[in-house]
């Protein structure tokens, strides 16, 4: 019997030996895989004698969500508090982007562009489209800016806060290259800093410029990767954000160094409470809206995020999974079901365990730029799947909210939550289940 080596377990040994022989480190897609405190560590305290529940499937529970009320003359009005996060054309196929737009439109929510600009397919398929202004400014232009329903200035991403982006050469085909003004096939680097401002004082002027160009019509969001959340949210507000988007460390990426994905930032659970407390400190709860993202999977996750102070959540990876990511089958040329398990195997993975978006060899046609693989995704069918998923989540949120006695999902509150672990209790600042103890707050 050998004793387990916790410092050098077999996986670490294999990793060191691979680096030694190949001279490289791991770059991959998706978000953090390690276990961190998460929404599963919270429970909702639904009604009993002390609270009065609403009738499930009968009594109305509102899900309508308005984002960007602070300055914009046309805030974003959504039917559900669940949005689609920014993912680039380039990282994703055109069909996947189209499917996200169609699904979001079908259920009355927004979708978001990504690094690489706005494609006509995406604009046309999306009723409400948030246009990202990223450090790279790939494809960023005033004509598309004027077509946006909101603008999101991206300072960072939960998977790689402070890290910029990358799109490996195999995904930089001719259309992606031309949208980004780059040579085809290069390993494309997205800048980590914006080219024309550095601190929040400059950013404030930048945001004013965006407002000037968009006629002060649409909201301006600021997206941050969750690190120093309290300070960053306050600075984003000072810079003029109408909406602050906080992306926790479980947030996904199409390709980033694993050192970033697993070792930077803070979990979404910790970030949401810090962010909502920061807005409360400023007296701006409800005036500046909070959107959180990073590992949101179910209506229960959404309900807990809203209870902790989010106005809405944003989905990235989960929306891809809904459309067929990690599925053992895809759609064949004649609409038949195609077994693609071998394609996963060729990438050294398997359905259910794939995080190989960086390779461009996505077996289900989502994270690829190769025409034959792209053809495996039927945008219409994919849109239906995503819409089904979003509706099911919205139903779950209302079900839980009603059981907590709320006629509007936005009335969920921290008092509706307890934590299963001391860590989650400390991060979410709710009592440990069965006690009145909030670590760091009460004795």
């Amino acid at each position, binding site marked *: 019997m050998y004793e387990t080596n916790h410092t050098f377990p077999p996986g670490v040994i294999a990793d060191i030996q691979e680096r030694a022989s190949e001279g490289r480190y791991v770059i991959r897609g998706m978000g953090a895989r390690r276990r961190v405190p998460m929404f599963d560590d919270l429970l909702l305290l639904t009604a009993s004698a002390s609270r009065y529940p609403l009738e499930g499937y009968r009594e109305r529970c509102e899900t309508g969500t308005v984002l960007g009320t602070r300055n914009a003359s046309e805030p974003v009005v959504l039917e559900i508090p669940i949005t689609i996060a920014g993912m680039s054309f380039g990282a994703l196929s055109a069909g996947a982007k189209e499917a996200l737009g169609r699904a979001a439109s079908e259920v009355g929510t927004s979708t978001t562009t990504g690094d690489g600009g706005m494609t006509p397919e995406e604009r046309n398929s999306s009723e409400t489209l948030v246009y990202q202004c990223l450090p790279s400014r790939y494809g960023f232009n005033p004509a598309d800016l004027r077509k946006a329903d909101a603008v999101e200035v991206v300072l960072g991403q939960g998977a790689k806060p402070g890290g910029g982006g990358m799109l490996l050469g195999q995904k930089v085909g001719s259309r992606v290259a031309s949208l980004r003004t780059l040579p085809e096939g290069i390993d494309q680097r997205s800048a980590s800093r914006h080219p*024309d401002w550095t601190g929040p004082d400059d950013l404030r*002027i930048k945001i004013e410029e965006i407002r*000037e*160009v968009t006629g002060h019509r649409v909201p301006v969001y600021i997206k941050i990767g969750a690190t120093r959340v309290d300070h960053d949210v306050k600075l984003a507000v000072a810079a003029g954000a109408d909406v602050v988007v906080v992306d926790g460390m479980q947030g996904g990426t199409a390709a980033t160094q694993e050192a970033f994905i697993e070792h930077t930032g803070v979990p979404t659970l910790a970030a949401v409470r810090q962010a909502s407390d920061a807005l409360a400190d400023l007296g701006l709860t409800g005036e500046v809206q909070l959107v959180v993202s990073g590992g949101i999977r179910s209506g229960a996750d959404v309900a807990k995020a809203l209870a902790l102070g989010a106005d809405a959540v944003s989905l990235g990876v989960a929306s891809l999974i809904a459309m067929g990511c990690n599925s053992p089958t895809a759609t064949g040329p004649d609409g038949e079901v195609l077994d693609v398990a071998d394609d996963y195997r060729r990438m050294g993975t398997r359905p259910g365990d794939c995080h190989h978006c960086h390779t461009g060899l996505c077996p289900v046609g989502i994270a690829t730029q190769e025409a034959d693989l792209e053809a495996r995704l039927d945008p219409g069918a994919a849109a239906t799947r995503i819409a089904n998923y979003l509706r099911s989540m919205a139903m779950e949120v209302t079900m839980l909210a009603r059981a907590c006695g709320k006629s509007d999902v936005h009335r969920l509150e921290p008092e509706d939550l307890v934590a299963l672990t001391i860590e989650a209790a400390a991060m979410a600042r709710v009592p440990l289940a069965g006690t009145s103890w909030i670590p760091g707050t009460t004795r």
Partner: protein
Amino acid sequence: MDATVTGAATGTAVGTATGPAIGTATGAEQPPGLRLDLAEVPLREANDALRALPDGARAELLNPAGRHNLAVGLTTACEVTIAGPAGYYCGGLGERASITVDGPAGWGVGENLMSGTVRVRGDASQSVAASAHGGLVVVEGQVSLRAGISLKGGTLAVGGDAGAFCGFMAQAGTILIGGNAGDGLGDSLYEAVIYVAGTVRSLGTDARVEDLADEDVERVKQLVEVCGFDHIDPGNVTRIASARQLYHFATHNHDAY
């Protein structure tokens, strides 16, 4: 505001105690076109009025006093003169217009320009022409750090010296420096090309000096003519371009990053 200024080309006259602050100059001694006194007209109204100008129209912004976001997001082939110093992002996100700043300009002048011209008749601060996709940004004086950063096809011409990291991560387009270039010139360049008439203090990562071809001389000659930079000899500039050694990530490049 000059009392002879009357009427409003855009139909958005703003009355003030001293007369309309937005109006059309009609007096013989005035240049034709819209004149907007920023001491009286709020920036938002001034920019709205500029955006409403038709092709060929002219306008002048008086008393800019370093205000930010002047003449941003214009879309017509109008001519705008800014009579004094401009703040951040002057002429940014613009298409087709010809904008002249009669004075110095702050950060990001001509940033994300798509087409048209922005000319600064003085010095300019950091990140001139950042991410410009097209058009021409001319700075007659000197420019500070990171001029032409992330350039995406636009042209930047500087009469004087350029600060450090000029052309950082510039993807496409042309940068001409009439004076000397600072440290880290062309760091991490992609396909943009830089010409320097004076000295280069140091090159950035993956930037290299290349031979000057006839097309380069012709390109510089045209730019010199357009900009009026007679002090530059097109046949006597240094061409800087990417060595393209960092187009693919590799740990053996660690020292270069």
